[in-house]
Structures are given as structure tokens and as C-alpha cells.
């Protein structure tokens, strides 16, 4: 009996905490459908009456959100593909090929994990700007290519693939690149998926790099666009919330569909990193 009561209490507590977690999102959604006069009412009006859709119309007509989406998707896809490909090549060499200097280079890469991005962002900016690449999407992509974390994660996984498998392919006369592409990559799908998810979400949500590198509005990513949209509509809460919903929707949809993979992937990468 005692146990039953405590279980019920635990569930109640957990539901209350979940509500606290979701509450800001619900408030955002509800506010985005209100008129200004309905925003700060006591008690809070959760389902607006009447419902006001015009905030969304305003967002889409005043702000090039579609271009922001496109820019962000382009940067995120290229940066993820580039980083995962480069990391996989290096991780394969570190895991399965014995070559001079292997441990030294690997050690150097891993050491960079200790350096926070804020420490190198100024010199990185100077390098990008001396390549005449500021205010381009390429600058954002290039900044993501060197990932010690990605190499480490994939190397860990590649090492669990038995050497025999690789040796067999080599004896069959498959070149090293074929062995990599035909044997290793298909084996490593879970690890690759983890890295893809992790990098994609990180780039999609990145704010500071776009803030530093981009100047022209039509090149903005969604985060930067949203930030400036917000500061230009300071007092128009309903419109800002509609904009925020638009910015959040894609990633939330992806999250709800691939919830299991995303949570596991991100937790897994935290455990490994």
C-alpha cells in the first residue's frame, strides 16, 4: 500500500516537472495566436479567444524566413557532410592503419578539445577574413570542419570492428579506400548517425558564428534572423512569438519524429566525449 502511494506521488511530481519544462513552449504558442491586449491577462488565457492568425502572416510578409531556412539548411547540410566525411577518413586511419606519427597527430587533435571556441574565435575570424570569406556561408562551413570530437567518436567505433574483417578485404585485393567505403562505413552506421544528428543540430542552432561572420541580411541563418527580428519588434510580443514558433518548428518536428535516435545519440556522444 505504502509503495503504491509513493509511486503515485512520484508520477505526480514528474508530471508537474514536465509541465514546468513544456510551459514556456505552450506560452509561446498561445501568445503567438493572440492580440496584443490578450497577452498579459490575469489569469493567463491559455486558449486565446478570439484566435488571431495575422501574426504569422505578418512574420512571413515582413521577414524573409524562407530565405533564412534555406541558408540554415544549406550551411547545416554542408557543414555536417564535410565534418562527418573528414572525420570518418581520419578516424579510419587512426583505428585501422599503422603509420608513422599516428599517435602524435591523434594526441594533437584530442588536445584541441580542451580549447574553448571563444579562445580561438578572434584568430579564426582573422584567418577567414584574410581569405576574403567573411559574410559568406562558406566561412560558417569551414569553421565546422575540424572536429576532434567527431574523430574521437568514430575512432572509438571503428576500433570495435574486428581487424579480420578489414584484413580479409585487403587480402581480397580491395584498395584501402574501397575497404573504408565498402566495409567500414556500412558497419559504422549507428556511430555516423549519432555524429550527423549531433553536428546538424549544433550547426542549425548556432548563433555566435553567424553573428560574427555574417553582415548581409539575406545571408542570415535562422537564429541570427530571429534575433534581429526580435530586436526590431521590441514591444510586439505576439509577432515575436509567432516568429519564434516559425524558427523552432523545423527542429521540433525533426525531434518529435526521431526522438529516440536523437536523445540516445546525444546522450551517447556526451558519454563518449
Amino acid at each position, binding site marked *: 500500500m505504502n509503495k503504491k502511494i509513493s509511486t503515485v506521488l512520484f*508520477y505526480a511530481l*514528474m508530471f508537474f516537472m*514536465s509541465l*514546468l*519544462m513544456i510551459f*514556456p513552449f505552450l506560452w509561446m504558442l498561445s501568445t503567438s495566436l493572440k492580440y496584443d491586449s490578450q*497577452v*498579459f*491577462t*490575469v*489569469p*493567463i488565457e491559455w486558449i486565446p479567444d478570439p484566435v488571431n492568425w495575422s501574426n504569422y502572416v505578418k512574420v512571413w510578409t515582413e521577414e524573409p524566413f524562407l530565405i533564412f531556412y534555406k541558408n540554415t539548411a544549406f550551411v547545416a547540410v554542408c557543414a555536417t557532410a564535410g565534418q562527418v566525411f*573528414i*572525420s570518418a*577518413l*581520419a578516424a579510419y*586511419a587512426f583505428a585501422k*592503419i*599503422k*603509420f*608513422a606519427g599516428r599517435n602524435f*597527430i591523434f594526441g594533437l587533435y584530442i588536445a*584541441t578539445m*580542451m*580549447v*574553448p571556441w*571563444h*579562445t*580561438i*574565435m*578572434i*584568430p579564426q575570424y*582573422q*584567418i577567414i577574413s584574410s581569405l576574403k570569406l567573411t559574410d559568406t556561408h562558406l566561412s560558417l562551413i*569551414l569553421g565546422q*570542419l*575540424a572536429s*576532434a570530437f567527431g574523430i574521437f567518436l568514430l575512432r572509438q567505433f571503428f576500433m570495435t570492428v574486428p581487424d579480420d574483417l578489414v584484413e580479409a578485404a585487403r587480402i581480397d585485393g580491395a584498395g*584501402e579506400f574501397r575497404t*573504408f567505403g565498402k566495409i567500414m562505413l556500412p558497419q559504422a552506421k549507428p556511430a555516423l548517425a549519432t555524429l550527423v544528428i549531433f553536428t546538424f543540430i549544433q550547426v*542549425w*542552432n548556432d*548563433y*555566435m558564428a553567424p553573428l560574427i561572420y555574417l553582415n548581409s541580411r539575406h545571408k542570415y541563418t*535562422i*537564429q541570427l534572423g530571429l*534575433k534581429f527580428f*526580435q530586436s526590431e519588434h521590441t514591444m510586439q510580443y505576439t509577432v*515575436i512569438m509567432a516568429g*519564434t514558433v516559425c*524558427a523552432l518548428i523545423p*527542429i*521540433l518536428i525533426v*525531434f518529435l519524429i526521431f*526522438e529516440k535516435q536523437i*536523445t540516445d545519440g*546525444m*546522450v551517447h556522444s*556526451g*558519454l563518449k566525449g
Partner: protein
Amino acid sequence: MAIKRLEISRRRVRQNLIGWCFILPSLLAFTLFMFLPILLGFWYSLTDYTGLSKDYGFIGLANYARMFQDRYFKVSIKNNCIYAIWYSVLTMLVSLFLASLLNRLSRCRKFFRIAFFMPYISSMVSVAIIWKMIFNPQGGPLNTVLAQLGADSLPQWLASTTWALYAVIIVSVWKNAGYYMMIFLAGLQNVPGSLYEAAALDGAGGWQKYFRITLPLISPTIFLNMILVTISSFQVFDLISVMTDGGPGMSTNVLAFRIYQEGFRQMHMGYASSIAYFLFAVILVITLIQFAVQKYWVNYD
């Protein structure tokens, strides 16, 4: 014999060549965007570089000396330390608490996971914008609820120099606790159930089991999370940039924000680089201390 040795050494050369081919792309990327910036940044920190003109000179450790005269810098350290302590302690406690609860519940797990992970998956910018409104002192939902609960003097949150930093802390904990909760949960699920049964036979109560068995067994996970949380507590930027812009006054100015302001707004890139290296040193020292102390409390078997 000689032919065989030649064969082996040719094979070795080939292996070396292939190995270096595979790491070449990453080596280029690391050299250009990691190694070079790390060295270049340190060099900038020893100069009066503005970022605008190529005409700058070596000034030794003057930038580092200047930091300790700089009122703004000192305030940002103080703020960052307050933030780091509150954020780390609260995030650890909340996430461990939630994970321990969740570990005992078998139903609705999917729902809980989604609810607690949603803030983590959302961008800092959107989350900061939402909370900025929730914190609105006149009629924002938070103060509305507080007033209904009977609080007489309501905090002004982001408009107040005393409360703004704590508002930032609240949002950070809310946003990240779900992530660390999931890592804790993974650790908790590795604790073998047989240990609890044995302890129950010995007459151990629930709390005793938790403190004597659970916590020691997940101490490696606690350690991992502690490292991750403290490192991230010195890198907070997005939230502050969007929610408070370092204000009101200097009240939420932290190290990363200071680097951005000095480097990209005031165009003191040399001086900003010295703060950036200071930040690096702080993170390094704290991490090293944690690794040194871990052997006294982390249990690896």
C-alpha cells in the same frame, strides 16, 4: 632475405603513405582552423592589435597586466563565478533528482523524455526570447503566478541589476538539466538490481540504499557530468547576448561576452585575445583540479 626485408619496408612506406592520405583533409582543416588560430591568438594577446589596421606592435604582457586594472573585466569574472557556482550546483542536483525519479517509473517514459529534452534541443536564441517575455515584470506569466501565490514584492528580473543574473541562471538550468538527466539515467540503469536485493536482505532502507549503493556506483557519471557542466558554465554567451546584452549595467556581463565586446565591438582584438587566453586557463585549471580530486571520491569498480 634481403628481398623480404625490402618487401616489408616497401609495405611500410605504402602504409605510411595511405595513412597520411586519409588524415590529410583533417590535417588541413585542423592546421588552418585550430592549430594556427591557437598560436595566432596567443600572439595577438601579446600585441596591441585592433583588428582593423595591419600596423600593430608587440607589447609583451601589457594586455594581461591591463586585465587586472580593468573594472569591467573584474566585474565579468565575478558574475561568471556566481553564474558558474549556481548553474553547476543547481543543474547537477536537478538532473540527478529527475533521473533518480525517472529511473523508478516504468510508464510514460517517452513522454517524460520528450518533455525534458525539448528545451535542450531548442536553440538558445528562441528559448532566450521566450523567457525574456516570461520574465516581463509587468504582467509576465512568472510574476503573475508569483503574485497569485502571495508574493508582495515581485522581482524586476531582467530590469534589475540584482535579479538579471539569477534569471539567466534559471533559464540555463531549465534548458540543460534534461541533457544531464539523460546521462545520469544511463548511469543509473547500469547499477545491477541484485545489489539492491542484497542490501534489502541486510535491512537497508530506501535512503540508505540510495546513498550507500546508488551514488557510489554512479560516481563516474557524476564526475563526467561535473566536468561537462563546469566547462560549459564558463562558455555561456548566446543566452546573455539575446536576453540581456550583458546588462542592465554590467550585471550579466560574463567572460565570453567580454571577449566578444572587446574584440568585435570595441575593436581591441589584442586585449580581447588576452581575455580569451585567460578563459582557457580558467577552464584548464578547474578541469585539472577536478581530475586531481576525483581519485578521492570516484569509484571505478
